[in-house]
């Protein structure tokens, strides 16, 4: 487990990669070309792992271990279903700050992922190139353009790779998202614009955010595909994403997928949703909880098995987080440039002297 490593020093190639620790989490989902029962159960399993990790993260925040956390509760099907459709040999995904489920599906070590919430490192500690998952991005709308550039790069290299970018209903208001859809449309790039419409952007409901009411409906204006799916139905999400990725690979250009789901928790652990939405709304939406739905199709035995596995992952993750040391203070000066500039070396030196003094 990552946290067993003595120090966080050095470049990320010394650090935890999803590859080497994923076994503790549950195998990263293999690339599925169609979905059979076994696959579906694997997705359920990952969803439950995500839910339990999410609950644990909230608990750890309350205990003061994590300074803050952005719960993913309610969006597990949307994230697992979409990430599971990626071909990890050639695709790449671009998350926001709320994509624990995608990380889990891509086999990222939860400890390396959570390091971000532990205030260890903004981008987490996983290697994005191995995980095929960019570092979490806190600028709403910002990473969407990266997916477009990445897809162009993949197309120029003719790798058959496609990009999938996560964004929220709130993010759909950002100019960058429009520019991204337009660029991807003009160049017909293999990009899946995966919008998790979870009903809220902090306190603003989608109805006051998205003129016209639908992010998927924007696609037609760019001459590209747009689909809405039930974001709480992991199979539907998976199928829509798989189709969109194939469409992109085949030269059909980008697709906007709007996965209709719900943020069951607060925006973050410092948010208080009772200020802007009713308990009644929350209760009603909880009835469509994707985990409850998934559980329904599992036997008691299967559930027990899944929960046991999830509990194991949670235990290890918690232990890992407890064991994790803050980065050595010297890292303050690392990674700014490929090689530090003279000015930075000077500042580092002065800082070190003041430490020793």
């Amino acid at each position: 487990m990552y946290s067993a490593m003595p120090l966080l020093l050095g470049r990320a190639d010394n650090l935890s990669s999803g590859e080497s620790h994923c076994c503790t989490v549950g195998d990263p989902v293999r690339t599925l070309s169609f979905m059979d029962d076994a696959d579906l159960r694997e997705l359920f399993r990952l969803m439950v792992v995500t839910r339990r990790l999410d609950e644990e993260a909230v608990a750890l925040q309350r205990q003061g271990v994590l300074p803050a956390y952005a719960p993913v509760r309610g969006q597990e099907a949307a994230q697992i279903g979409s990430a599971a459709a990626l071909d990890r040999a050639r695709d790449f995904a671009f998350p926001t700050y709320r994509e624990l489920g995608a990380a889990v599906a891509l086999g990222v070590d939860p400890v390396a992922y959570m390091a971000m919430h532990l205030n260890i490192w903004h981008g987490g500690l996983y290697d994005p190139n191995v995980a095929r998952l960019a570092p979490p991005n806190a600028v709403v709308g910002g990473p969407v353009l990266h997916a477009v550039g990445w897809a162009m790069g993949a197309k120029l290299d003719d790798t058959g790779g496609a990009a999938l970018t996560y964004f929220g209903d709130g993010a759909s208001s950002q100019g960058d998202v429009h520019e991204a859809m337009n660029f991807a449309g003009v160049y017909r790039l293999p990009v899946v614009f995966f919008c998790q419409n979870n009903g809220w952007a902090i306190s603003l409901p989608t109805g006051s955010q998205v003129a016209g009411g639908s992010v998927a409906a924007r696609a037609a204006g760019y001459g590209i595909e747009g689909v809405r799916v039930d974001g709480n139905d992991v199979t539907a999400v998976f199928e829509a994403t798989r189709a969109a990725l194939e469409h992109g690979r085949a030269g059909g250009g980008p697709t906007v997928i709007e996965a209709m789901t719900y943020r069951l928790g607060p925006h973050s652990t410092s948010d208080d949703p009772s200020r802007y939405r009713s308990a009644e709304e929350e209760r009603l939406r909880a009835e469509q909880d994707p985990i409850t739905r998934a559980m329904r199709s599992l036997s008691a035995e299967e559930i027990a098995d899944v929960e046991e596995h999830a509990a194991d992952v949670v235990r290890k993750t918690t232990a890992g987080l407890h064991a994790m040391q803050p980065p050595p203070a010297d890292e303050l000066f690392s990674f700014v440039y490929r090689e530090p500039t003279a000015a930075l070396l000077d500042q580092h030196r002065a800082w070190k002297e003041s430490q020793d003094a």
Partner: protein
Amino acid sequence: MPELSLQQALNTALRHACEDDDRVLIFGEDVGTLGGVFRVTDGLQDKFGEQRVFDTPLAESAIMGMSVGLAMAGWRPVPEIQFDGFSYPAIDQIVNQVARMHYRSRGTLGMPITLRLPSFGGIRAPEHHGESLESLFAHVPGLKVVSPSSPSEGYHLLRQAIADPDPVIFMEPKSRYWQRENFDPAAPVEALPVGRSRVVRRGRHATLVAWGAMVSRCEQVAQLAAEDGVELEVLDLRWLKPIDAEGLAESVARTRRAVVVHEAPLTAGLGGEVSALITERCFGEMRAPVQRVAGFDVPYPSGSLEDEYLPSIDRVLTAVQTALEYRRG
């Protein structure tokens, strides 16, 4: 006399501004029902209605571009951008439009816009939530920039910013939102002109120049230094544009040494400007070059490295010592 936190003082200032001038509009992400992520606009929508206090969709460039149009239509916009680091998407509207429309139109289109911007670091927040953009803003002709260092300062400076006929970037030191002070916002105060600094503590051995959250840090330093018999003057610059060059010169001409302290990265930070202004005016009197204590030239780090990044009491003290011990080579 009520005890108010900075956050409450700002909330009161907004309330009074809305009461006094029915052209004042307050808007931004989550400022309505939620009352803002820092609750600075708490209760204002209830009091003034959804026309005067409203939520916007999530787009900072639109928030500022809309402010330009509202000002053209005769309103007095007080938009909020939720966090410092998210003003970057709005920089084009701020620099190319907000700051220039009055100029471009030869004074026919006033831009009495006050952008409220929770700013600076110190609260162990996620990436982009701890930035200090004052040197960017201070460089832009047509903008005014101010940052309060206490609840009473917050109240009066925000009232002054909103009343000002020009665009003002109002940088709220978020690590000080919960700082408390006894003062009566209703009590009349002498109106200071825009751009006036404030001597927070008198001293004679060196002047510490700071703004926002670094003012109280400098006061701590002065306290400690006093125990060693070193009397430091603490100057709260307050206005980062226009800068009080006279106030700086007046202080440093007396103390003959200066240390400027800020959170933003050193290079091309406002400390360079302050250093140059002081040196240009006080070269003859100065006993040591102006010392700068600033954030390092690195991205604002994650919480676990934050204390190392921000100017610490030790680093400021070291700089004071360097200034005091300086001998011309």
